[in-house]
């Protein structure tokens, strides 16, 4: 897929663990893992908003477009 999810990078920058972020955002660690591994087909604006709020970043910091 040409949309890359850089959640790992942002988590490392903020020194936060996956399960902490999952708790703050209110999603399961399994779903966060789906998002991190790029298996997700879509992301809700509400989830994106919660992630940006928790990591204090912009959507562009998490999502990146790379030509196939």
């Amino acid at each position, binding site marked *: 897929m040409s949309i890359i999810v850089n959640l790992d990078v942002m988590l490392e920058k903020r020194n936060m663990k996956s399960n902490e972020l999952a708790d703050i955002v209110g999603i399961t660690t399994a779903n966060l893992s*789906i998002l991190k591994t790029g298996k997700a087909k879509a*992301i809700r604006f509400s989830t994106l908003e919660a992630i940006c709020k928790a990591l204090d970043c912009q959507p562009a910091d998490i999502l990146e477009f790379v030509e196939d």
Partner: protein
Amino acid sequence: MKTKHVLILMKIISWIIFIGLCIKAGALIISSCVSLFVNHEAAKDLYLGLDLSNLYEYDKWYFIAVISLIISIAVLKAYMFYLVIKIFLKFDLKNPFTLNTANLISKISYVALSIGVIAIISNDYNKWLITHRVETHILCDFGAEGVLFMAGILFIVSYIFKHGVKLQSENELTI
């Protein structure tokens, strides 16, 4: 809650029909084998008064052809209800759209189509026998139109189900 009760009732009815059709198919196979290899008098009452003795006396091969068609319809009907039971065993109301269920519905539609085609052949063959003045004592209606209509509807339902599976998996992968 109401749907759950209806499903349980349908499951029980399907089991009863399946057992009934298995008995019918088994009885037809055994009685036709008996009439062919042991005693041809058995052709007078093959199953619930099905009398093909005239046909047997006219020509044994015509008898074999007719009984083969009747047996294949009975066996396919039993197999169709076996597939219906399989759906009920794996059906989950919370997560109904599974690829397995969609494939089973599609399989049922193909089996129904086969039954319909065999029923049409049986009808025409029976009519042809009557024109040759052979009394077969079978009604010339195997319900081909109804089964073919059901096959068409089931094929559409299976297609919708497959689309539902795709939508459900997409929904599950939306975070």
